[in-house]
């Protein structure tokens, strides 16, 4: 026996009490959906987890109506301190049920339990705690005294961090006094539905949060619903662009958090062993299915070979397999569709002439898997240096001078995040200043905190989530005119309100 073949250490699924079927969560209770229901599966073995209801336009309409009623009659009249109490209660319940939520997330998404347990779920609680504290302090958000909520927020979230993205959306919206209709991703609805149970447990007034499951059409119906005052979306740039078109001219406020192709810049004086860890965490965290992943590694030519050698040695120690095993480092890709995209772009990378290297690991027979992969010899003109792969695939490029590193890092339609590795503090500041990216990490990567704003430049979207900035996306100044609702329910605004 070799020690490194650690005996299986699976987290027990017994803690999870799942129902066979889940309905839509509207007005504080679960109800059947009118659309054709669908199955959610485990990407690790393609096994059936539960049957999920699908919301059609009428269901979305009912959810928005419930949110509007809750806004008018309860939530907008409640004091900030009382809203805060609910948020604190939700945060505590998330902590109490942390293990259950982590197991559900890993089961439905395919991410390793150590990530859902140590990153996702603790951050979810942190987000609710953070915004709970804001609820009675909105006067200090920067908009002057007594800022007002926007009304009903329609929120559409992705499958890569299902519960965390839910928290990023719901926590600031509720703290600011809005009510919510949220649509989880089609492949990962499970944790949002468990979260709905937590809302019931917390006695949150009915209609304040509504969760409508379904495919893209459900999200589209929500986004274009006339009684929605605010649209928040995290997902692909293509869908984000559609949403921007849909809401243009309607007076709805929008925040979009879209794709990325982050540069992780390693200078020759970097702390090398920690930089290797940072590269690994940057692109192989959550199987690389992270919008801010450090998917382009820019290495100074003088240390390129050493960095690549050390990186490959390190990647050979990663453990791919059962997401519920506590020793798993690399879990499953979330869906067959995503796996196909990763395979396709990797094939293109080889055709374009980059050298492919994949860690040797046993790939399970069933489920969606992709071994950690590094492309060296990637040029700025290659597609794998341009397109967001959203998978465990790293493209390695080189540079000679800091100026070249900055130019290459910025040479992308995206601008969500970037990383800098150097022991020289002044270089960190100088380079960070010139990177067009919403988040710049120095000697670390993929670190998140509720007090820090997150968002992108260019095609990575607009608006910020997190921190005080994230709160502003759900508030307007006391003097701003309210939306005037026509009898059809279509909100119209005076020109002044849009300025």
């Amino acid at each position: 026996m070799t020690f490194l073949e650690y005996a299986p250490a699976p987290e027990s699924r017994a803690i999870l009490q799942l129902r066979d079927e889940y309905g839509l969560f509207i007005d504080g209770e679960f109800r059947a959906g009118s659309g054709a229901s669908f199955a959610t599966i485990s990407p690790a073995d393609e096994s059936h987890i539960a049957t999920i209801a699908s919301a059609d336009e009428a269901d979305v309409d009912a959810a928005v109506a419930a949110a509007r009623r809750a806004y008018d009659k309860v939530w907008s009249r409640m004091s900030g301190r009382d809203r805060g109490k609910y948020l604190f209660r939700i945060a505590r319940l998330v902590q109490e049920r942390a293990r259950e939520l982590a197991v559900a997330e890993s089961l439905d998404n395919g991410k390793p339990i150590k990530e859902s347990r140590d990153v996702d779920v603790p951050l979810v609680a942190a987000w609710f705690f953070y915004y709970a504290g804001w609820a009675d302090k909105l006067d200090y958000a920067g908009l002057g005294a007594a800022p007002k909520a926007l009304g009903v927020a329609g929120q559409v979230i992705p499958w890569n961090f299902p519960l965390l993205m839910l928290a990023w959306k719901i926590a600031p919206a509720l703290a600011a006094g809005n009510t919510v209709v949220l649509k989880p991703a089609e492949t990962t609805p499970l944790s949002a539905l468990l979260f709905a149970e937590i809302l019931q447990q917390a006695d949150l007034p009915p209609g304040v949060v509504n969760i409508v499951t379904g495919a893209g059409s459900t999200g589209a119906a929500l986004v274009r619903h006339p009684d929605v005052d605010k649209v928040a979306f995290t997902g692909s740039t293509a869908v984000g662009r559609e949403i921007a078109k849909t809401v243009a001219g309607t007076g709805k406020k929008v925040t979009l958090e879209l794709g990325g192709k982050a540069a992780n810049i390693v200078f020759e004086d970097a702390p090398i062993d920690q930089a290797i860890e940072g590269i690994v965490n940057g692109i192989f965290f959550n199987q690389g299915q992270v919008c801010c992943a450090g998917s382009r590694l820019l290495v100074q030519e003088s240390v390129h070979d050493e960095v690549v050698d050390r990186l490959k040695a390190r990647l050979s120690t990663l453990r791919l397999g059962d997401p519920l095993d506590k020793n798993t480092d690399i879990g499953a890709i979330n869906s067959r569709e995503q796996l196909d995209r990763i395979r396709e772009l990797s094939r293109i990378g080889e055709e374009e002439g980059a050298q492919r290297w994949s860690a040797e690991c046993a790939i399970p027979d069933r489920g969606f898997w992709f071994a950690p992969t590094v492309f060296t010899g990637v040029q700025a003109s290659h597609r794998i240096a341009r397109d967001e792969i959203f998978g465990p695939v790293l493209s390695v490029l080189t540079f000679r001078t800091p100026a070249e590193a900055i130019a290459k890092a910025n040479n992308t339609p995206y601008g969500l995040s970037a990383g800098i590795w150097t022991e020289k503090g002044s270089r960190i500041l100088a380079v960070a200043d010139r990177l067009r990216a919403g988040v710049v990490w120095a000697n670390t990567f993929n670190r998140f905190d509720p007090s820090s704003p997150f968002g992108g430049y260019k095609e990575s979207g607009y608006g910020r989530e997190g921190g005080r900035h994230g709160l502003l996306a759900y508030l307007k100044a006391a003097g701003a005119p309210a939306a005037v609702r026509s009898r059809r329910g279509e909100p119209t605004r005076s020109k002044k309100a849009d300025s």
Partner: protein
Amino acid sequence: MTSTQLQTLSERAVALLGGEPDDTTLRRYLHGLPGVDAVGLESRAAGLGTRSIKTTSKAWALDKIIQLIDLTTLEGADTPGKVRSLVAKALTPDAADPSCPRVAAVCVYGDMVPYAIDALGAAHGDPDEGGVSVAAVATAFPSGRASLGIKLADTAEAVANGADEIDMVIDRGAFLSGRYGLVFDQIAQVKQACRREDGTSASLKVILETGELTTYDNIKRASWLAILAGGDFIKTSTGKVQPAATLPTTLLMLEVVRDWHRVTGEKIGVKPAGGIRTSKDAIKYLVTVAETVGEEWLQPHLFRYGASSLLNDVLLQRQKLATGHYSGADYVTID
């Protein structure tokens, strides 16, 4: 180790350093090493600490930990009687289970070496061959504040008394004031003093006393310095200074050993000492060794725990694994 090998050793150091091992050359070399980011190092160590070692892996790990322990007593109050008691414990860790493996070595002050050897009798030998070695601390342990002559005499006497391994301390004052040449020279001379009349040598463990070096950059440089000067093992601490061994520090030293192996093909040992008291902690170190330098290092000539109370916690865990329930402090023996 023969004198020709020692010769090669210093020649190799000169080749690697690009000059004689004086303050200037060593400074240029050690300060040219990539820096260490403390936050990153500690988070990597914490990550390794989350590995979940269960069932068969745990059983293997517990036995392996016992085989890697330097069972230690380093008190002013040590007596021949105390040393005999320690040796008895080293030979039969679990009185109730004859299948329990022996520890790698006992670690005592130099003047206690004859009593340890006497008590071990026929069991005195290489841990690879089922024996138990005798390690002696030397060079004015733990402070190292004595003249070089005294340090060398201290070492030579312990070797002459039959010590298989010498645990020396570096001159931390000299290191912190940048006199790297002096530290190098002292290690190299102690290494010479480890030679026996028959041409073989006692194995040399170089104690960095990381708790006094305080920064990871210093610890990294001291590790390279100790290996360049001929140390067979690098050891974290004397156990007399806090903090003693920590997982990030040990990880950093293992990374140096891994890099040294890449450069020279040579395998250097690592010994965290002081503060490792529970099986749970000790397993984290095993994981860190296996995932940083490889499983090959999980053998007595390449990895040791310097510990005294750790052994009984491992025995309790071992009993728990065998019987399914916890016993208690009265079901393991004191030494």
